[in-house]
Every structure is written in structure tokens, then in C-alpha cells.
């Protein structure tokens, strides 16, 4: 999708800026949930989130095409994120910025996306920037797992985005060609710069730092911005400003240690041992004794603001792949139904179905639990589109509907991501 009416960037004259958004996370194997339902970042060892590591590598691969590109890594979080930003330098980034402010603590993905976008604007990167830039982020983080932030940043900046991307290349005419993972294959997308890309951890593995990079990292300075520095509206951030409320968190405890199903140093020994194990039956999963679900009650003084403003209903979006509704989109209707029933008050599920000749698929959505299906059909909508403008149009139309919806539920994942 080439944005019409915009001059192509002449990349031989102008330099490209590659901006990476990274997050430091606890080592997944050591992750603990705090009593308050938020991540406890104090105990575990920290790493750069795995998806972000792949995103950093994607940026460095793009640099191969533009050896003079300005390389920036940004993060938002406590100052304990510093080692990760230094690591980015050791990998080949030049400048690092951290947005860190107590006021931002507890921000949800919406507030985070907005804050990061403000930081980028503060650094001079807006949708009208004269010089081309690309924002690259990891698809999602292992501690939040929402995959919202890259999209929120793109939305707030008003630039096109592609999510779930495996690899990117520049076409030399001011566009980024992104290889996006979709159900059953890939989608090749062309995005005009500036644009934002979220990277899945399936592409080129992250490189190791070089010694020279590490020496540079040791001697580099790190710029830390406060919320006021980047002029973010502080009433809309932090635990109080964020629209999301974490109602409860359930800690999953594995109840059975792993078992050895087969052991041996030759094929025969392996097969014999497997058969013996199956015959013995000791390792078969028994009926799980139902354990009472531990629900964390929110404290009485927990600041709950109802921002629904009288709106009601649940929106889901039906993702299409090869002319069919994807499984996650259908599966999503089950929890949506459960939620609707819990909310009571005649809450309805509305599903948006966008594409070319898709009306006939609506029946399937009704069968799986939708109460209402909004069909948007157009020949130009055959492929997933990345220009935010289009989506805003849909949003506006939806908002004009008399049933205002309070809760959008999207499955964040094409089912190629097994989870």
C-alpha cells in the first residue's frame, strides 16, 4: 500500500533512522507475579524481552542496507532498565533513551503506547517528519503478553503499521517490505515510511554483542526523560490514568513434575522403555483434582474508575485467512460469551467482519456465539490493510451505532502463533 501524494524519500540523500522499542523483562523461567497482581520485577534476573531481541536484530539487518542509518533504542520503565539499553549499544545501536517516571508506574498498554509515542515526538519523530524513520518493536512481551504497544504507538503517531512481521527490507524507494506471518503462510506488505513494525521471534536470531560494542556501551551516556520532558498528559497515564483494570490474577502452579517417558542409548532401548512406560501406565495424567481457584480480591480502596460511560456490549473482530475465518477468531467467541453472560444486563456480542465477499461467513459467527455481525465489504478489502485511517473510519461508523460497545475483544494472534 503506497500512500499516494507523498514524495518518495530519496534515501541516498537523506539518512534513515531506525528506532527500536525494547523492554526489559524478568527471565521467563523466573517470573513471579506480585501479591498485587502486577509483575514483581525485583526478584528475577532480567533480560531484553525475547521478541524485542529479534526486533533489535531486524533493525541491524536493515542497517546492512543503509550502513549510515542512525540507530536508536528506546524504552520506558524504571532506571533498572539501563543494562538492556546498554546491551542494545553493544549490539550496534548508537543512541539510547529511557522514559522513566514514577508517574508512569502501573501504566497499561494504552498509556504506555501513548507515552512512548510522546517520547518519539519529543525526539522529533512525527508522521510529518522530513526524514524517513521506522519504528521497530517486538511483537509482544513475555510479562505483559498483550501485543498492544507497538500498535498503540503507531496509532498515536498516526503512521502505518504491520504486526507479526518476520523480516523487513527496504525497497530503496521509501517503502518497507514486510513479511508478515498469517495463518497458513505469509503476507508481503509494502509500507511507506515512516511506519511501525512489530517483529515476531521467528526471523533471524539475535546476534551476540561484540567486544568493541561492549566497550562502546560502557562509555556511552544514557538519556533519561521524565513524563514532563516528553509532554505526556499525566492524567492519562500511570495506574490511575490507565483504562485497564486488573481485576484478578491467577497463579498457575504445575501440579505434576515432568516424567521421563522413554530412556535409552539405542532405538531398541528407547522403544522398549516407551512401551514399558505405557504398559505400566504410571505416567498417564490422572483426572486432575479440581483445585479451588485462588482469586486475588482487589483491595477495598483499589481505584476503580468506570470509563464505560454507559456503553455496553462486546466487540470482536473476525480475522480472515485464505477466505476463511481463523480459528482464534472463532474460539474467542467462547470467552466473549462467558463474559457477556457474566456482565448480564442483556450484553450483546458484536463481531466485525471485514473483507471482500464475506457476507456468507456471518452465519458461522452466529453459530459460534455472536449476537450481531457487522459486515464491511469492499473489493479493496481483500487483504489486511495497514493504514490507520481506514480503521478509524470503521471505528467512527461503529461508534455511530446506537449500541455503544464497552469492550473490544480481539484475539491478538494469528494462529500460527501457538498458544
Amino acid at each position, binding site marked *: 500500500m503506497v500512500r499516494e501524494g507523498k514524495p518518495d524519500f530519496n534515501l541516498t540523500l537523506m539518512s534513515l533512522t531506525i528506532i527500536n522499542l525494547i523492554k526489559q523483562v524478568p527471565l521467563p523461567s523466573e517470573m513471579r507475579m506480585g501479591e498485587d497482581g502486577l509483575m514483581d520485577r525485583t526478584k528475577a534476573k532480567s533480560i531484553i524481552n525475547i521478541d524485542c531481541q529479534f526486533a533489535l536484530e531486524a533493525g541491524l539487518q536493515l542497517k546492512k542496507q543503509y550502513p549510515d542509518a542512525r540507530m536508536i533504542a528506546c524504552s520506558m520503565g524504571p532506571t533498572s532498565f539501563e543494562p538492556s539499553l546498554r546491551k542494545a549499544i553493544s549490539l550496534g545501536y548508537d543512541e539510547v533513551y529511557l522514559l522513566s517516571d514514577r508517574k508512569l508506574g502501573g501504566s497499561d498498554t494504552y498509556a504506555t503506547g501513548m507515552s512512548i509515542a510522546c517520547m518519539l515526538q519529543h525526539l522529533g519523530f512525527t508522521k510529518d517528519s522530513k526524514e524517513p524513520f521506522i519504528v521497530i518493536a517486538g511483537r509482544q512481551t513475555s510479562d505483559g503478553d498483550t501485543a498492544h504497544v507497538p500498535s498503540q504507538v503507531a496509532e498515536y503517531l498516526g503512521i502505518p503499521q504491520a504486526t507479526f512481521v518476520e523480516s523487513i527490507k527496504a525497497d530503496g524507494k521509501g517503502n518497507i517490505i514486510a513479511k508478515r506471518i498469517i495463518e497458513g503462510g505469509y503476507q508481503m506488505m509494502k509500507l511507506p515510511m515512516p511506519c511501525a513494525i512489530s517483529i515476531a521471534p521467528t526471523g533471524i536470531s539475535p*546476534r*551476540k554483542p*561484540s*567486544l*568493541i560494542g561492549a*566497550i562502546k556501551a560502557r562509555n556511552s551516556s544514557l538519556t533519561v526523560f521524565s513524563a514532563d520532558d516528553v509532554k505526556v498528559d499525566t492524567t492519562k497515564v500511570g495506574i490511575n490514568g490507565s483504562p485497564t483494570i486488573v481485576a484478578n490474577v491467577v497463579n498457575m502452579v504445575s501440579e505434576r513434575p515432568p516424567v521421563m517417558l522413554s530412556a535409552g*542409548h*539405542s*532405538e531398541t532401548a528407547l522403544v522398549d522403555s516407551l512401551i514399558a512406560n505405557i504398559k505400566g501406565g504410571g505416567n498417564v495424567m490422572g483426572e486432575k483434582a479440581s483445585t479451588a481457584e485462588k482469586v486475588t480480591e482487589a483491595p477495598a480502596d483499589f481505584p476503580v474508575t468506570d470509563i464505560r460511560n454507559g456503553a455496553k456490549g462486546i466487540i470482536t473482530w473476525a480475522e480472515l485467512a485464505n477466505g476463511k475465518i481463523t480459528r482464534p477468531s472463532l474460539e474467542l467467541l467462547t470467552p466473549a460469551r462467558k463474559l457477556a453472560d457474566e456482565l448480564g444486563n442483556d450484553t450483546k456480542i458484536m463481531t466485525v467482519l471485514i473483507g471482500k465477499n464475506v457476507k456468507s461467513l456471518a452465519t458461522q459467527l452466529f453459530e459460534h456465539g455472536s449476537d450481531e455481525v457487522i459486515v464491511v465489504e469492499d473489493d479493496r478489502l481483500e487483504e489486511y490493510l495497514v493504514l490507520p485511517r481506514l480503521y478509524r473510519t470503521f471505528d467512527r461508523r461503529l461508534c455511530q451505532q446506537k449500541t455503544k460497545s464497552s469492550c473490544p475483544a480481539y484475539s491478538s494472534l494469528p494462529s500460527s502463533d501457538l498458544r
Partner: protein
Amino acid sequence: MSTADTVNTDVLIIGGGPSGLATAIHLADLLKSAGLERRILLIEKGASVGSHILSGAVIKTDVFKSLLPDVDFAEIPFNAKVTKDAMMMLSENGKIHVPFHPPYMSNKGNYTASLGQICRYLAKKAEEKGVEIYPGFAVSEILYDNGKVIGAKTINTGVDHHGNQLENFQAGNRIEAKLTIFAEGTRGSLAKKLIQKFDLAKGKNEQIYSLGVKELWSVPEGNIAPGEVYHTMGYPLRDEFGGGFVYGLNDNKVAIGLVVGLDYEDPTFDTHNAFQVWKTHPFIANILKGGKLVEYGAKTLPEGGWYSLPKLYVDNALIVGDSAGFLAMPALKGIHLAIASGMQAAKTASIAFSKNDFTENTLKQYDEFIKDSLIYKDMYPTRNVRQGFAKGMVAGVLNFGTDLVTGGAGFAGKLKTEADKDTTKKLSEYKKTLFHERYKNKLEPDKVLTFDKATDVYFSGVNHDEQQVAHVKVNNPQSFKTVNIEEYGAPCQYFCSSEVYEIHTDKNGNKELRIHAENCMHCKTCDIKSPGDGITWSVPNGGNGPDWQNM
């Protein structure tokens, strides 16, 4: 030669163990008092300083006072002061308290500690003095110019199993230095090449080694007091040289281990499994009762003693610590000697900087400094002890007695050693009961007190990048099959502390070696003990290997 890929420094120290860190700290101090400003770069292959450090440890602490004269001793993170120190002779079903205390083994005034913690502390001190420490980088190659050492190079990363470059390839960086210090610890992979290239071991005894396997446990209150120290002899070892240790630490932790001389003959001997059997002895089992395993690790230690020390210097380079073989037998103490050798190397280096001469001419003073130091006093009197034990435990004890009378000269003057790889016997030649027959009914781990290698390996936090050339290499695949596998029954599958080597038998009975390099504990046993053409251990990618916290 200087390019964008080159780092220039005055001193390059390879290895962040006690010897490398002591060199760095003392040299920084000496240069400062001489008014010289020089760059000191220390590279450590572990992901952080301490993550590849394993020791007992009971430490002789005096040397720390000379290394850090301005530091309050209490600030150094030793664990507990030794309160009780006993030698036990273990038999199959009981214990005997050895009535006399073996000389050179007294631990009065010593402290127990995690050497990893000590090294982290020393690294902090070194950085405060301006030393630049870069953990997570593996030094894989010595750089020469006109046949002289001019520094070293870090490993290329981003290559596949065959060494082909991948898209994330990063060429290693050259580090050029006026002086390079080899502080790689036991069986240093570069020190080994240096010793070979310059024939530094000429006229010396073969270096011989022991393998120590260790577990850190957390036990219920009352099982053992901090500072309680036991050494054991006997069970489950028979002809093998070695013994166990039990060191009580604060917070109800206890460090236990078994150290076995690699000059044993039994091709199926397995130190890890012998260690597991050792734990079933009631004396040990009682101390561990109700406790749980916290960490596992293994490392070799050089035991040849004074006569196995190679020449310690060449133009532009010095060797310190275990890489040289500074270890006091039979007390198994190397930490204070590592530090002392680092300090003598620093003294030598500071003279070299003031003269701006890094040739052997100046560096040879290192030898004299060593002879004037506590290293000589600790190592010379026991110079024949270990060789005596090579003839078996009984002959060893006798020889040890003679040593005491004759001041270390023994009857033979200078006893010779044989390389550990050559002492292994072929299956057909080994006439005694093989190890795995000997303890057949004891080798099934109960996963409470005893563990298989795979479980223990898990408790080391070990990790290796998948995309790289395997860092252990069979030198000659053809002879490996006919000699190592067929004649010796593949000793590597037994001696390896971490189940890296697996012999796979296919339907037709063909045996083939499979290497799981990702498990490797960096103990270096395979480099030392493989018969025939052997196996070579080299560094994997930086930051790979165990991730020890408190070893």
C-alpha cells in the same frame, strides 16, 4: 596493525578468576603509585564474573590482606571461619576418625567461602581501581606477530555447526596488548597452545589433574554448623587417588564434593557417579538428610605440583594461577596461590611498564619473585607428594611419610608423572572389577539424595547457543572409533561430568559417538583424559556454559 575491529590496550588479562583479578588489582595499584596510567582490560568467558568459578572452598586468607591492604577484612565476603576440621576414613558401612591430622592439611584460621562470590567482590574492587572488565566474551585465539604474542582475539559468533557465516555473523575483535596475562584457570585452552608453541613444559613433569564434582545443598538447621569442615578418604574410591569434602556454610548451606585424580586406570570410572555413591555413606547421608540440592558443578584442578610448572613467561606474556599449575598438594588449595601468582605477575608487569620492556629479559624476574614468595614455601616441600600417590593410595601414604622425614625429597629425588590420558587401561587389559560393575546396585539415583547427570546438569544453569561449532572436537574420528570406542569402551561417556558424550548403538550394533556440547560444564576432563588421539576442548561463544551463583 590497527583497524576498526581492533581494541588496543596495555594489558590484556584472559580470565576473571582469583589469579586474573589479583593481577589486575595489584597492577592497578602498582601503576598508580608509580604514577603511570595504563589501560588494563580483563575478559571473562562466563556471562558474569563468578558464573564459571567453582571451588571448594576453604581459603587461606592471609594473601587477601596483602592484595587489599586498605580494605577492612570483614568486608570481603568470606563465609564462615573454620571451627572444626577433621579427616574421616570412610568404609563401606561406617566411619573412622583418622587419629592424626595430616600435615599440610590443617585449616586453622581459614575460612569457608563461595569463590564465585569472592570473585564478584574482587571484580568490583578492580573496577573501582579503573580496570575494565568485560564478562561474556570468549577469547579463542592468540595473536602473534613475528612469532611473538601481541594479544588475542574473541570468538566469531553467528556461525552454523560447520562454521559457515549466518546472517547475524559477527567477526571476533582483535585485542592488541603490550602484555598478555593467561589466567584461564585449569587446563587453559589458550595457555595450552602457548605452552605447546614455545615448548614451555620442556624438561618438566607432565601436568596431571584431578576432577572435582561438587554440589551445594540447603539442609535443615542442625545438620552441620557453619565452619565445620570434613575431608574424607576411602569409600567409594579403591585405587583412585582422592577424597571427599564437606564444608559447612552459613544459612544452613553445605558444600560437598568428591575430588578424584585423573590418573586412574579403570576406563569406566565415573567421578560424578562415584560422588553419588559417596553421598550414600551414612556419614554424608546424615548431613544431607532432609535437605535439597541447590547447585551442581564440576572442574578439574592441576595437581602435578612444583615439578610440573611450565616456564612461566615468554616475550609479552605471563601465565598465572591454575593455568600455570599453582596448587598446593595435598591440601588442594590453589586460591591463595592464584592470588599470590597474580600479584607477582603484577609486580613483574609494573617493572616492565616502567622500563617499557616486555621481553623475556624483564619478564624472567617473575620466576624469582615466585621463588621468593609463599608459593615456593607452599609448593616445594610437597613437590613429590602427588607423584607418590600415583602408585596407589598405600604407596602414596608411605611416600608422604617419607617426604615428611626427608623434607620432600623422598627416596627418589624427583618422582615422574605420566599424562593422565596414558594411564587409562584398555578394557581387555583392566583386570579388576570395572567401576560400573563395582557399584552396580548403587547407581540408580533416587532423585532425593542421589541424582543422574542430566538432573545435576540442570542444577548448573548451563546454556550454550545452538548455532555454533561444537566446542569439543574429536581430534581424529577414525582412531576415535577404533581406539577410544572399541578398545577402551569410550571412557568419555563415563568421565564427562555432564553427559556430553553419548554412545549410540544402532540396530546393527554399530557404535557411534554423539556429542551434546550444550551440557558442557567446562571442566576440561575430556581434553585431559581421552586416550589415543583424544578430544580438544576450546571455548564456545562468550556467556555460554554454566551459570553458577554460589560455587
